[in-house]
Structures are given as structure tokens and as C-alpha cells.
């Protein structure tokens, strides 16, 4: 367990779906501020439920979850949007709006939280520079490579400067070179102070990056190692 200030704490958390599936069982963990964590496991191990639970999309059926001092299992539905502003999310399939250009896709995240037009322009240009997409702001997603689309998704997730970045299989649709570039970008985001949690299947990346690795199996944590590797 890390000694840093805990940003995420799960205490005896279980999630059982109405079908009776026990997706998470008695999960106890802490993620410190500024940490980089891989969550690994085979299909059906509970990785997706873990991410969905942190997003407030799935409610814990048992236990307590604290994220940035908010008790997630007690958050009311109308408070959920404000809670989600603490988080940035990146998905395997990028989930960009195809009818809008790079700038508009990223600016949407700022518009949602009510940032002024001038500030949006400045912030979006800054974040596009950080992810290496300067000069591509007018392009539509279909004109970009997979790696570039994922960079747009990361820019959108990061433009509001969230405390935590959740990445669900961010390299799942990318070739090895683009995968490494995205991981380097996530490492850079982490270096700038954001806590990063990456759910992945990619053994190579997990083994090479030497970060904290939490392994799930049948909804339970089977290992939690600092500078760990991928255990199957």
C-alpha cells in the first residue's frame, strides 16, 4: 500500500448485478494522489465494473467508496455530474463526436462546465499542444489516425484538469507504436500531477512501465504490487 495521501479509497466494496453476478467482491484498496495504476485481469474479472463503479455508473451493493473526499456510494443522482468533473475518462473506442472537429470535441468538455468562450479557446489550444495535435484543430475524427483520435480523447478528458484520469483499454484499438505513444502521453499527464488509472490487457506495456499493478480475478483483488508486472 502506498503512503501518499489517499485520493481513492474502497472499503469492502462489492457489486452484485440484478442477474446475481458478483462483479466485484470485498474490494479494499487505496490509490494515492499522483499515482499511476494499472488494473489488469482477464475478461469477466471485474475491470470494467471497477471503472464503472468509480464513474458512478454502477452502484456498490456493499461497502464504502471515497473519491477526493466525496463518499461516492452516498452521492445523489443530481450530484453525479459535479462528481464526474473530478474525473477524466478515456475509452478504447475513443468516443469522439464524428460531426465535430478536434477543437469542438475538446471544447465541449469546457462548455459543459460553463467556461467562457475566450478561456475555452486558450485552454483547448494549450491542451492540444500538450497532446501533440497543434495545427489539427479543424480536422474531423475520420481524418485522423487511431493514435491521434485517442490523443483528442485524452485532450478532452484532461482539458478541465481533473484530479483523476480513468483510461479503459486506451491502447486496445492501436498498433504497438501508437500504443507506446499514448502510454507516454498518459505518463506525462501523470507527471503533471493527475492520478492515472489504466485498465488494460496489454502485457508488454504493463511489464515495461513498472508501475503499480492491481490484478483482478472473478471480482477479487488477487495481487497489488508496486512496480509490478502482468500476472495471468
Amino acid at each position: 500500500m502506498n503512503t501518499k495521501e489517499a485520493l481513492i479509497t474502497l472499503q469492502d466494496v462489492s457489486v452484485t448485478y440484478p442477474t446475481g453476478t458478483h462483479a466485484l467482491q470485498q474490494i479494499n484498496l487505496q490509490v494515492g494522489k499522483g499515482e499511476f495504476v494499472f488494473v489488469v485481469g482477464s475478461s469477466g474479472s471485474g475491470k470494467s465494473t471497477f471503472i464503472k463503479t468509480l464513474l458512478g455508473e454502477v452502484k456498490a451493493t456493499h461497502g464504502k467508496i471515497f473519491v477526493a473526499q466525496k463518499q461516492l456510494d452516498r452521492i445523489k443522482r443530481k450530484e453525479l455530474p459535479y462528481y464526474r468533473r473530478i474525473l477524466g475518462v478515456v475509452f478504447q473506442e475513443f468516443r469522439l463526436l464524428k460531426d465535430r472537429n478536434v477543437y469542438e470535441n475538446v471544447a465541449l468538455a469546457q462548455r459543459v462546465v460553463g467556461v467562457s468562450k475566450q478561456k475555452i479557446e486558450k485552454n483547448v489550444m494549450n491542451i492540444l499542444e500538450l497532446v501533440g495535435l497543434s495545427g489539427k484543430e479543424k480536422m474531423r475524427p475520420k481524418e485522423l489516425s487511431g493514435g491521434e483520435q485517442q490523443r483528442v480523447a485524452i485532450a478532452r478528458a484532461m482539458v478541465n484538469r481533473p484530479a483523476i484520469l480513468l483510461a479503459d483499454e486506451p491502447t486496445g484499438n492501436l498498433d504497438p507504436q501508437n500504443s507506446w505513444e499514448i502510454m507516454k502521453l498518459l505518463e506525462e499527464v501523470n507527471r503533471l500531477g493527475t492520478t492515472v488509472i489504466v485498465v488494460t490487457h496489454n502485457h508488454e506495456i504493463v511489464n515495461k512501465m513498472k508501475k503499480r499493478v492491481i490484478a483482478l480475478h472473478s471480482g477479487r483483488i488477487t495481487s497489488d504490487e508496486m512496480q509490478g508486472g502482468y500476472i495471468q
Partner: protein
Amino acid sequence: MRTFVYGIKQGVKNIVQNRLFSLAAIGTIATCLFLLGIFYALVSNFQNMVYHAESSVGITVFFEEGISQKQIDAIGDKIKAYKDVDKIKFISAKEAWEKFQKEMYGDDKSVADTFNGVNPLENSASYEVYLTEVKEQNKIAQEIEGIDGVRKVNGSRSVAKGLNSFNLLVAYVSATIIILLLLISVFLISTAVASGIRVRRDEISILQYIGATDAFIKMPFWFEGILIGFCGAIVPLVLLSVLYDKMIAFVLEHFSALSEWLTFVSTGKVFRTLIPMSLAVGVGIGLVGSALSVRKHLRRSL
């Protein structure tokens, strides 16, 4: 304010992207409000005609034999005191006989001459009583029958009753048809908005993940419904404004025999009510339809 502008822009975008459903919804609302306009014009014109007809439908009050003029005047005062009595007119026995002759024989004096100057309607002096509310005729006739000195009361009860029943029938039938059409419109708007929600499901899901509030997500769909309703109200208003005067001219030209009965309400008077009514109904059902759809389809994902 920025959220408001964003909502309007996205609402318009939804309508354009989803133009087939939007046009179907606008068309149905327009049809519904066009019919509403026609029924409203019919009902208000019919009521206008009934009002004029009512003023010509009266009660006739006959007196007992040998009654003095003073007593007749006293009966007249009592009748005038009733709340729903508009005016009364005294018809003397002589006037009654002259009126009868004119109605029965026209200008032919030969039949009347056979009476050798004797008035056969000597005891038929009467009051013609006109009411402000024709539906009160039955009640007032009964009350007048109870006044001392009154022999008989003749009312055009069946006419009055018939006019009122027909007016009510027209109002009920119109209301039923309009309510059915409004429900169909709400359903169609709801379907158009639901289709927009399906098309934008990915966007909605992204908005939810990046912390958009429910109002931010729902607003474009509310505007979509309002705009559809508004457009659906404007189209029939324009059509009706063109057609109304032409319809009146057509009826007066082709049914000139009924011109005494046909008293139409002016275009201005009809539209003073019809414009706000149509806009309120159009925007109202647009909002209700979209709100129902948003409530049903977004609840699952929010």
C-alpha cells in the same frame, strides 16, 4: 446564457438531422391545429348565430278573461323583474288579430270581412318575452305561469332546447376530435424526439461522462419539441387567415337564402383568440411530447 444558446443550436440541429420525423411531427401538429382552428371558427360562428337566434326566440304570455289593463301592467312589471328577461313587448288583441290575418291570408281581406268587425282574438292580448339566456326559457315560463292573471304561456321550448343541444353537440364532437388529434401529436413529437435521442445516444453518453448536468443534456430536446410545436402552429394560422374570409364569402354567395341566419364573427375577433390559443397549444404539446420522451428515454441512461 451560453447553455441556453447551445440548447437552441443543438435543438435546431436535431430537427435538421432528424428532418423526416420532425416534418411528420410538424405536419401532424399543423393538421391538428388547422382542424382546431376550423372547429373553433365553426363553434364561435355557431354560437354567434345561436346568440342572434336566441334574441328572436320568445315566450308568449296570455291573460285571463276580463283582466284590467292595470293588472296587465302589473304582470308586465313582474316579468321584467326576472334576471334573465331581456325585454318584453305588449301585443294588444287588435295587433294580434292584424298579425294573424297578415300571416294567414296576406293582403286578402275577404276572410277577415266575414267576421263583420268582430275580433275573434278578443281575449288574446299578450306579452312577448325575450330572454338573455335561451336555456332559461323553461324555468321562466313555469314561473310566469304561476303569476295571478296569467292564463297560458306559450314558449318555443323545443326550438330553444334544440339550439342548445346542437351547440353542445358541436362543442363535444369538436373537443373529442381535437383531444384525439392532440394526443396523436404528442405521440409523434415524442417519437421524433426519441429518434433524435437514439441518433445522439453516443453524444449523450459522452456528455454524461464529462459531467454535463441533466438540464444541459435535456435542453436541446426541449427546444426541439418547442420549435416543432411552434412551426406546427404557425402553418395553420397562416392558412386559416387566408381561407377564413374566402370561406365566409363563399357561404354568403352560395347560401344567400340563409343570409338572415348567417351572422359571422369577424376575422380579427376569431384570430384574437385563435393566435394565442394555437401558439400555446402548439408549443405546449411540443414541450409535453419532448419532455415525455426525454423522461422515458434519458432516464435509462442518465
